[in-house]
């Protein structure tokens, strides 16, 4: 054995690294072996119908004979030009419009690409300084939501088809009645928003009907934070984090880079501090304490597994540890928050020392699932540490109407007391997602007139007397206000797809004013108030930019320690011991379908959860030992019983789960979720009560009564898991995913290149000869990648990648061109998570090209490994020969039955693939060609950054860099020069054009030594 390999082995052993894909991989069962050893798993070559090969051939022979006789001539095709062409449209050229997407009080500034009047691609608006061209999974997928064929197309009145006009007619007498009695008996339930126009309309509603009940509800919100900060600061403020200033971050049951507020802005700041370019660069350190692995934990340097109910005890202990080390903590606080000696004291001491050593440069974050008092306490801790004003500031988001769960409880109580005659539910789906103890569906029966305004005929729509279709944000006027005070316009990209419908601003104006007004007029009127003297020209400028940059000054008020001490009670810091008879359940927002609102979006249903890698389903996540104690295994369908409330849920054994803690994802199990959403997963809302919106104890798990096949994609398309390679998997995974601690990196900056013994590389093949021109390449910084998966969805949208359905995913046939590999490393119970996005590596010596019998995959002049669909005959040799497993095969004609509206979401610049054709990442070859032609047309040279593939464009942290490696000044060429650069499986001499920058971790030496 060569020296270098020994080094690699030694380093792997020294750090105790033990890499694995999933528990199934670790257990290495015969079923698992069978799954990974077959390139295309069981059943993938059999036809779906009962037709066998012989009958198929017979029929094919006959139909070919017939086909030969007909179709001698090509079919006649028509060209249908405009009668009168809109001035701005040039057929064939895309137009981009700026708009904004509202999602609760969180909003995204977007640039939407439209083709001949139909929006096809969502991108971030580069003019928004806080987000740039980045966007997230939900924004990317919302384009499919626009074309959702199950969107409500017509109003319903008691189940019969009606119209918005009819509703206006029905509302007019009610309006007169409530205007006279100042709204007694009237109630309005809205979703949270941050919008000047909606806020203005809501104020108008309140003024018109002072006695009316107004409630705001979203299933998942930051209400706890507002309540906690209410006691700390006297006002319900929102914490705004500045990760660029934070050296030490402690996340307490928080997911600031995953599903929580402003996740991608947070991630952007965090990644800024991980962009280690040279050995003397500094790097931040992240500690995570949580019950269930989150996306944030994937970036953690240290993670402590702790039940959600014990996080307060941890925090109190930390406070005591810091007090013992000289932090001036008022005694009242220490007395109110007693320490808990049973939690890993070495861990707490290490964190306490680290935070104290970085006063003013640390940051403590409490997650939205933690109770209000925890947010108050954390605000005090940040203030005591001097972080207030440097890493954390506070603000009240302008024009925001935040979710208030108490208001929903009050509304339901009023409904049950028959105090509500007319209820209007504007947006949202409370019948599905309201806390189970409120029994919103039951409460509705006590209300005379119920009106639901929503995008879908969902559970609430069917339970209400009236249902009025809501307009999608891409077809309505509106506006938004960001956390930073920036204002944005929501402008329609397309005429409403369905004639009958109303926007939320129009509906609120109708309710408040009694007349139907145009959304545009409402928005314009608001903006004229906001910006006095708004000229037409300025307004056009705002519409062009999509936003009006404004910055509010964030505050850093000192929390009132007395007030916080008053809310703290020692009882809050004692959690009952957990056991099989008294387990804890935690609820979390789905990274895919959100709170259930995106359940009918196929892209999101098939989007693998960044950590569990489950698609089309949610599950009761539990640790191996908990599952063993209960005698359960993956896919076992059990009944979860939480204080008498029950729901079925399949079990999924998840490393990193705290003992006797079960985590369930909300948003699944829709009954009226549309053709995609109905029946996917199980409804976790049934366990959720208004007293315990995020975590509860008293959970018991019944015995398995059935099994559910779970579509987890991690074990599919496994890199290099064939028999031979698997024998050395422990040796190989650290070679695939290269990482080191900051200290190791400082000692040996070239560590990434040395992890593998590089043989003398001599090719069997003749090199491609490139004379000149662009040579495309990509670099992915594993240190900046947060595993959010936005690239996967952006790619799906850009490249017309089909959704295949759960059954197909179970067969390993998902089509995503970017697979985000998730590896675990370390202990079974509390592993580290390693995340690696893998698309086609665009090998220089591509093994796929060498085996294609028809030259359907070949090299082009610019070094791309191109796939020519019309030549492909579907042998799948290329995929067999691809060591990265990034090729995807169309086993069926997945687009055959695509509804017409969904076809409108397809990108016309990319061929829609047919059955029997192989496909893979192309580096967005269409964007390259269009970019080159545009440059040629304008007579300019292409410059770095002119062409961005969809993945790079959407990446919130800028982890993906694409460009011309022939240009030494390009960003990608510079990235590839960095010492952490390495090629995946570089020893195979395939010379991939995508290379990775190795991951660095920054562990605390005190904890690492342990």
């Amino acid at each position: 054995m060569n020296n270098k390999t020994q080094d690699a082995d030694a380093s792997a052993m020294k750090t105790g690294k033990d890499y694995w894909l999933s528990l199934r991989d670790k257990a290495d069962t015969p079923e698992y072996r069978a799954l990974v050893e077959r390139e295309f798993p069981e059943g993938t070559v059999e036809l779906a119908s009962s037709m066998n090969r012989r009958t198929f051939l017979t029929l094919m022979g006959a139909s070919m004979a017939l086909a030969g006789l007909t179709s001698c001539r090509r079919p006649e095709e028509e060209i249908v030009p405009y009668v009168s062409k809109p001035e701005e449209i040039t057929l064939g050229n895309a137009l981009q419009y700026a708009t904004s997407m509202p999602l609760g009080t969180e909003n995204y500034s977007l640039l939407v690409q439209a083709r001949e009047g139909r929006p096809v691609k969502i991108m971030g608006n580069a003019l928004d300084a806080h987000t740039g061209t980045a966007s997230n999974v939900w924004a990317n997928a919302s384009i499919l939501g626009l074309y959702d064929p199950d969107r409500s197309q017509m109003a319903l009145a008691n189940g019969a088809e009606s119209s918005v006009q009819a509703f206006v007619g029905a509302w007019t007498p009610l309006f007169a009645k409530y205007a006279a009695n100042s709204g007694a008996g009237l109630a309005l339930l809205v979703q949270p928003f941050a919008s000047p126009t909606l806020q203005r309309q809501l104020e108008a509603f309140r003024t018109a009907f002072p006695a009316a009940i107004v409630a705001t509800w979203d299933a998942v919100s930051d209400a706890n934070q507002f309540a906690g900060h209410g006691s700390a600061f006297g006002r319900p403020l929102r914490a705004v984090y500045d990760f660029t200033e934070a050296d030490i971050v402690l996340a307490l049951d928080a997911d600031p880079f995953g599903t929580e507020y402003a996740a991608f802005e947070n991630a952007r700041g965090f990644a800024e501090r991980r962009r280690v370019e040279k050995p003397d660069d500094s790097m931040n350190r992240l500690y995570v304490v949580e019950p269930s692995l989150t996306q944030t934990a994937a970036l953690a340097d240290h993670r402590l597994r702790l039940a959600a109910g014990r996080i307060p005890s941890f925090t109190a202990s930390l406070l005591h540890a810091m007090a013992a080390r000289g932090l001036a903590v008022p005694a009242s606080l220490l007395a109110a928050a007693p320490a808990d000696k049973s939690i890993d004291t070495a861990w707490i001491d290490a964190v306490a020392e680290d935070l104290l050593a970085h006063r003013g440069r640390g940051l403590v974050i409490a997650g939205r699932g933690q109770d209000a008092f925890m947010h108050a306490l954390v605000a005090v801790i940040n203030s005591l540490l001097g972080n207030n004003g440097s890493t954390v500031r506070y603000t009240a988001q302008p024009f925001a109407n935040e979710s208030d769960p108490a208001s929903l409880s009050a509304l339901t109580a009023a409904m049950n007391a028959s105090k509500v005659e007319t209820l209007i539910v504007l947006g949202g789906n409370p019948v599905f997602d309201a806390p189970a103890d409120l029994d919103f569906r039951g409460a509705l029966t006590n209300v005379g007139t119920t009106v639901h305004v929503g995008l879908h005929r969902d559970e609430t729509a069917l339970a209400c007397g009236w249902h009025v279709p809501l307009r999608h944000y891409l077809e309505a006027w509106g506006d938004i206000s960001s956390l930073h005070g920036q204002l944005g316009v929501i402008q329609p990209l397309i005429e409403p797809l369905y004639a009958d419908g109303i926007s939320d601003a129009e509906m609120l104006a109708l309710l408040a004013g009694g007349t139907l007004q145009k959304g545009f007029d409402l928005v314009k009127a608001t903006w004229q108030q906001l910006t006095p003297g708004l000229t037409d020209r300025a307004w056009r400028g705002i519409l062009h930019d999509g936003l009006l940059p404004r910055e509010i000054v964030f505050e850093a008020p000192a929390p009132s320690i007395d007030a916080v001490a008053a809310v703290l009670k020692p009882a809050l810091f004692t959690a009952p011991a957990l056991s099989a008879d008294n387990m804890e359940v935690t609820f979390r927002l789905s990274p895919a379908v959100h709170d259930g609102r995106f359940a009918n979006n196929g892209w999101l249903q098939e989007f693998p959860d960044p950590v569990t890698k489950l698609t089309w389903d949610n599950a009761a996540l539990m640790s191996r030992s908990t599952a063993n104690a209960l005698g359960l295994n993956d896919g076992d369908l059990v009944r979860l019983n939480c204080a008498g409330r029950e729901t079925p849920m399949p079990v999924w054994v998840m490393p990193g789960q705290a003992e006797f803690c079960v985590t369930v994802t909300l948003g699944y199990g829709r009954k009226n979720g549309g053709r995609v959403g109905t029946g996917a997963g199980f409804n976790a809302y049934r366990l959720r009560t208004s007293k315990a919106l995020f975590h509860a104890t008293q959970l018991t798990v019944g015995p398995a009564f059935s099994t559910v096949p779970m579509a987890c994609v991690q074990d599919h398309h496994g890199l290099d898991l064939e028999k031979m390679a698997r024998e050395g998997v422990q040796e190989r995974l650290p070679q695939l995913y290269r990482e080191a601690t900051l200290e190791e990196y400082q000692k040996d900056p070239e560590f990434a290149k040395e992890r593998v013994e590089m043989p003398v590389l001599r090719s069997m093949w003749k090199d491609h000869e490139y004379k000149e021109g662009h040579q495309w390449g990509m670099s992915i910084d594993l240190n900046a990648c947060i595993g959010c998966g936005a690239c996967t969805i952006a790619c799906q949208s850009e490249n017309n990648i089909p959704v295949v359905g759960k059954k197909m995913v179970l067969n390993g046939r998902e089509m995503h061109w970017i697979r985000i590999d998730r590896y675990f490393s370390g202990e079974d119970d509390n592993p580290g998570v390693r995340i690696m996005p893998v698309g086609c590596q665009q090998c220089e010596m591509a093994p796929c090209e060498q085996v294609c019998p028809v030259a359907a995959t070949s090299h082009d002049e610019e070094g791309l490994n191109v796939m020519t669909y019309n030549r492909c005959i579907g042998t799948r040799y290329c995929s067999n020969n691809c060591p990265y497993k990034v090729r995807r095969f169309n086993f069926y004609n997945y687009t055959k039955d695509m509804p017409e509206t969904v076809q409108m979401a397809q990108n016309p610049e990319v061929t829609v693939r047919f059955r029997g054709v192989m496909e893979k990442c192309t580096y967005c070859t269409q964007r390259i060609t269009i970019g080159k032609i545009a440059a040629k047309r304008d007579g300019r040279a292409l410059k770095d950054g002119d062409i961005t593939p969809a993945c790079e464009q959407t990446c919130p942290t800028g982890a993906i860099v694409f460009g011309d490696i022939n240009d030494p000044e390009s960003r990608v060429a510079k990235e590839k020069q960095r010492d952490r650069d390495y090629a995946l499986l570089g020893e195979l001499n395939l010379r991939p054009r995508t290379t990775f920058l190795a991951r660095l971790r920054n562990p605390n030496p005190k904890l690492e030594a342990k």
Partner: protein
Amino acid sequence: MAQIFPEWVNKVPGRIALSGGILVIFVIAGIWYYGSPEYTDVGYQPVQPVPYSHKLHAGDLGIDCRYCHTGVEVSAVAMVPPTQTCMNCHTLIKTDSPKLAPVRESWEKGTPVRWVRIHKVPDYAYFDHSAHLRVGVGCESCHGNIAAMEEVELAKPLSMGWCLDCHRNPDAHLRPLDEVTAMGWTPPANQAERAAAIKAQFNIKPPVTCSGCHR
């Protein structure tokens, strides 16, 4: 001893020979047909809803191609003009010509004229007009002398092999930019030199690999 094979087996060799012969004929006929310009439909000249004469407009009247096909220099698509373009003139000229009845009807009713497509590349091939026009490839190279056609017909096969012929050796088709729409153009004697100059000017390296046209 009983016969092993039934009597009908006697006919089998003959039938095999016969069907084999038919198959060979089919294969030859197939290659003959599908490989010929007949298949690519050169000369395809469908009847259009409006008897529009390119010869009259582009030839005799000398209207530039780009007056109607406005996208040709800025977009992948040359664009068949909207009815409005016809009506720019025909609200004044030949206002009651019976030949123009469908155009007037389109304009009044707002229903588009449904032309029959003549020039077509497959859906998986992405041709860009602007990329060609802006570097001096004339309209005529692909469409033939439109100005001489009373009714437009397909002049070139538009097959992949035909595209590649020019992509491999574009010299004969490169013109100065102000002559791209000229019809009946004949290359000057020094075309080789001029082509070399144009190639240098626009850095012309026509792609000959798949990604040039297929996405």
